[in-house]
């Protein structure tokens, strides 16, 4: 393996609000290899979407601020890029697909217009070529009668079609990294699977890397090779998806697994994690999950636990700090 495509190091994205400082992303680190699919899982408010937006350079500053850290994309720290350079990167080398395809597409322009715009923003082609490319893209995301859909407005398409159009738009410049922020959440279950399959096959076709952000563990386990679990702006656990769900290390991951409904298995009641995500304005000094944790210890609330590397996995829990496999970084 060469150097990773993307390396996020100790990223901190804070927001200054009237009620105080919100540490939306607080020391997140991970890396992504070429062609790899990384899943980011977490409840809403865990900072996973802000992480994605920070990579895209779409965090509104102010009220947001990048408090620290680095984002190395192909070895370059893109946080240090000028605005215009960042704009060349966006939509070109890094594409993004959003959650709600209804609101994420501009209602007053045709699908074709919006895709062609993306093409023209990054390549020096005339309108006609851009439009041809847009139709090709629509065909590539398996939209039937692409020429017809090209002329349609977002409200005239179904949710699945719209999401395919979004993907076509994100991919029209052959990005090396595709960030999908809850791409299937707003879709029917059957359509969800199709979209995931599409993303996966496009990745294989183009060799791009994908960050798949979701709160849906099923989605991650289906598509991602590696998973990071985020909670309150921090990464609590990281590991291959094949093992992380079967053998979770962090109590939070375990709790997440327990609360996931399993097909064919009848449970009395679905498990739910007690308590609530700590208020962003009033974070406890120790482990952030401690107040809700079933196996919390006295030390948990005293200091934030360090990351512990166990083989190809990483976990942020005091339980593993003394284990013989663990060593402090």
């Amino acid at each position, binding site marked *: 393996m060469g150097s990773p495509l993307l390396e996020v190091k100790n990223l901190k994205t804070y927001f200054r609000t009237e009620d105080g400082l919100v540490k939306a992303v607080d020391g997140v680190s991970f890396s992504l290899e070429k062609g790899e699919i990384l899943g980011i899982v977490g409840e809403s408010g865990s900072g996973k979407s802000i992480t994605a937006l920070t990579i895209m350079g779409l965090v509104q500053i102010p009220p947001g601020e990048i408090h620290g850290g680095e984002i190395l994309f192909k070895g370059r720290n893109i946080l240090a890029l000028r605005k215009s350079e960042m704009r060349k990167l966006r939509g070109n080398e890094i594409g993004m697909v959003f959650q709600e395809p209804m609101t994420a597409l501009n*209602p007053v322009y045709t699908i074709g217009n919006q895709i062609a*715009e993306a093409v023209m923003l990054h390549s020096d082609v005339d309108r006609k070529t851009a439009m041809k490319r847009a139709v090709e893209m629509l065909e590539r995301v398996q939209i039937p009668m692409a020429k017809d859909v090209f002329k349609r407005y977002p409200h005239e398409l179904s949710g699945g079609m719209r999401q395919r159009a979004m993907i076509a738009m994100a991919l029209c410049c052959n990005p090396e990294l595709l960030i999908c922020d809850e791409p299937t959440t707003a879709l029917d279950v059957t359509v969800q699977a199709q979209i995931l399959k599409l993303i996966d096959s496009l990745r294989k076709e183009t060799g791009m890397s994908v960050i798949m952000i979701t709160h849906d563990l099923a989605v991650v386990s289906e598509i991602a090779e590696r998973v990071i679990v985020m909670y309150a702006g921090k990464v609590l656990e990281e590991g291959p998806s094949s093992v992380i769900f079967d053998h979770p290390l962090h109590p939070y991951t375990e709790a997440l697994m327990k609360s996931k409904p399993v097909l064919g298995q009848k449970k009395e009641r679905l498990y739910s994690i007690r308590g609530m995500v700590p208020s962003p304005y009033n974070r406890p000094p120790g482990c952030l999950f401690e107040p809700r944790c079933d196996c919390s210890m006295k030390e948990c609330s005293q200091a934030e636990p360090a990351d512990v590397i166990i083989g190809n996995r990483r976990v942020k829990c005091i339980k593993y700090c003394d284990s013989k496999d663990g060593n402090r970084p």
Partner: protein
Amino acid sequence: MMIKYIISRIMQSIIVLIGVTLVTFILVNVVPGDAVSLMLAKRTDQATMDRIRHELGFDRPYTEQYLRFLGNAVRGDFGNSYFEKTPVTEMILRGLKYTVRIALWALLLALALGLGAGIVSAYFHNSLLDRVIMFFSTLGISAPVFWLALLFQIFFGLKLKVLPISGVDKPGSFILPVLTLGITNAASIARISRTSLLEIISQDYIRTAKAKGAGELRVVFKHVLKNAAIPIVTFAGLVVRGLLGGSMLVETVFSIPGFGSLMVSSILTRDIPLMQGCVVYGATIFVLINLLVDLAYSALDPRVRLVKET
């Protein structure tokens, strides 16, 4: 389908206009202030009054008077003004020449200033600049047109002597009325567009546009403005109607012989043909503007088109 929609809208408009003529006719014949006795304000005798009344056809039955009025109105003939003895249509066109000219420039100024200030304000919202712009727009909205007009007259006309105080025939005569109307309307347009832009800026598709790598200006002018234009167009329609109908005050202050002051004098003098002409022409203009606003909607927003067609 668009054509079908337009035709049905025009039919609706005609029905509205016929209703307007009927209501006008009834009102004109109900309001106190008999035109004949008003014309003969002093020193008159019943015989002269009766002669004139007969000459003007006021002794005919109301239905006959109305049908004759309607028949002539369709041909654009509203008769002669009682007081000026000039064909009403000629007088109204003469007045509209000024009013439309001022209204158009004022609209342009209001849109340019209002949209400009609104865009800047929305773009830098909550900044000092935004606060300053919003302060002035609040001032502009709350300042009575009349007061602003006077202020301009005193400042530019009397103190600086750089612009004419009133009238229409000196160079620069139109600047102060246009400024007055433009600025007051710009203030409200600035507020409306700021609100509307802020709402659009926070929409998901704006983030999408940015994610595509679109620059800030492109995002604002292509993605934000067209969406934000919908409430702004509605308001601009109101502004145009206000400029055409409500410019009476400004026309009076600046001594402009426009449509507004014509309408006022027609009412003050109970010049019935002129009054009826003003109402029918005014209503026609309003109906046309409404039609234009509706058409602008469907041009701007494909979702409106869908609703209207089905």
